[in-house]
């Protein structure tokens, strides 16, 4: 389905203070792909996502969603198809109840209240927080806020889900929950993160950003195993792929990685 395609064509962007945060970035993401966008702090991940969402406009180059070019005029129609989860859920949740926040998007698109209710409840169900519907968002825990923010985007039923650091500041249990959630989405998704283990589990393709430029773009396992590449971009091989902490030999579970199963399986434990 070509209308779920997302394409960036040689994007450049400079902040008003002259800092060039994104340089010559091009890629195409097709329907159903899951793409991890990785890079060190300040590599330009958030900036790039904002360019894709039309929060910022590139100084050169263009973004195409489906076959439509992203401009101020096409923005409303395009935004309906992209769901963006902010790095900080506090920026996203501002209504008085979780339900109202999840219903905010659908209501803005003029759906009638019955349809809004169906969508909101479905979204809450999907992320597993129907019991939080009447709580005030600012009183939730960090992990609960995160999934609530994800639900508030899912209720709009976007074609493409774009997330900035979905697992940052989460405890292991909440992180696991978000990861499982992401793994089960059939959406086209783009996930910006430094959490390479999460990327390894949830994404099949990885784009590496380094100082605003694309340093690599390819299959997840190939890139995340490439120690040199990652280190030159200020990153590290994911923990789950590093040497076995018990015997020090390289973990022998590459075959498992392909099946998205990262259970620890060094020979020394047999």
């Amino acid at each position: 389905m070509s209308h779920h395609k997302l394409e960036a064509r040689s994007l450049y962007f400079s902040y008003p203070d002259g800092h060039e945060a994104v340089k010559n970035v091009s890629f195409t993401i097709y329907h159903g792909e899951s793409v991890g966008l990785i890079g060190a702090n300040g590599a330009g991940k958030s900036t790039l996502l904002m360019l894709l969402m039309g929060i910022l406009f590139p100084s050169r180059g263009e973004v195409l969603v489906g076959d439509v070019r992203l401009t101020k005029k096409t923005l409303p129609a395009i935004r309906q198809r992209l769901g963006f989860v902010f790095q900080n859920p506090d920026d996203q949740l501002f209504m008085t109840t979780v339900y109202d926040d999840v219903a905010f998007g659908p209501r803005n698109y003029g759906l009638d209240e019955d349809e809004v209710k169906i969508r909101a409840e479905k979204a809450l169900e999907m992320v597993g927080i129907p019991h939080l519907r009447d709580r005030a968002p600012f009183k939730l825990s960090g992990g609960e806020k995160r999934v609530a923010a994800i639900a508030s985007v899912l209720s709009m039923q976007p074609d493409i889900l774009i997330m900035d650091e979905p697992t940052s500041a989460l405890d292991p249990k909440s992180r696991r929950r978000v990861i499982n959630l992401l793994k089960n989405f059939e959406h086209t998704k783009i996930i910006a993160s430094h959490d390479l283990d999460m990327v390894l589990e949830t994404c099949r393709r990885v784009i590496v950003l380094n100082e605003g430029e694309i340093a690599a773009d390819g299959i997840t396992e190939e890139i995340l195993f490439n120690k040199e590449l990652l280190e030159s971009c200020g990153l590290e091989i994911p923990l789950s792929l590093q040497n076995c902490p018990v015997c020090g030999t390289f973990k022998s579970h590459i075959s498992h990685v392909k099946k998205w199963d990262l259970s620890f399986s060094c020979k020394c434990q047999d």
Partner: protein
Amino acid sequence: MSNIINSLYNIRLLDDLARKKTFIHSIHPLIKLLTTIVYVAVLASFERHEVSALLPFVFYPVFILSFAEIPVVPILKRVLLVEPLIIGIGILNPLFDNYIVVFGDIVVSRGWLTFLSIFIKCSLAVTVSILLVATTGMDRLAIALRMLKIPRIFALQLLLTYRYIWLLIEESLRMVRAYSLRAPGQKGVKINDLGSFLGQMLLRAFDRAQRIYQAMSLRGFTGEYNAGDVPKIKFRDFVYFAAWSLFFIIARIYNIAVLIGALFTGVGR
């Protein structure tokens, strides 16, 4: 300083209260707004130094407090916050108006009566306004305003201001907390640091407001605020409005406090 920080949690108390489901909460927002407007208008129409006739008007906030299950203390605290302002408005009266009024054995200056009158009126008006928000919620209040044909931009302005104010307060409380952790045993923010402190606060609040606005527009927000289904005005709502308005007007025309007093002492005026 822990005091301020505790209040971080209570800041949105009114929002929480507005979500209760009592009889008062279920009254249509427009009706509650209109009732409050009538109440304040009638209060304002009283003689400058009227005091005893104001007493029946305490009944309305008390009624709401008890039937809407609103805790009294936090509401009073919020009223107390504006009290200095009210005192400031009224305090000149006793100074300039020395005319003496005699009630039986008691002699008072009319200036003090006027001050007391202003004080009671303003406190009552502030209380019912806070109660209106606490039983209706700002979102629904904005809908009520729209029903009164108040231009969209004003209703929206009110709503966003209300949202942003909490953000601003939260942001500053967080900064105060961070500051106090690194400046133990010190009261408040040092004057030397105040400049950059306030500057930071403003920038941060501005940034935050902008991100929230972005989040809103990403979810299709174009200026019309939709807060969901608005219930129809029911017969019950009309009765509520009519009954209270009648009560306010009767209490305006007849001094109920004096009438009741007369009933008990058997002395007519």
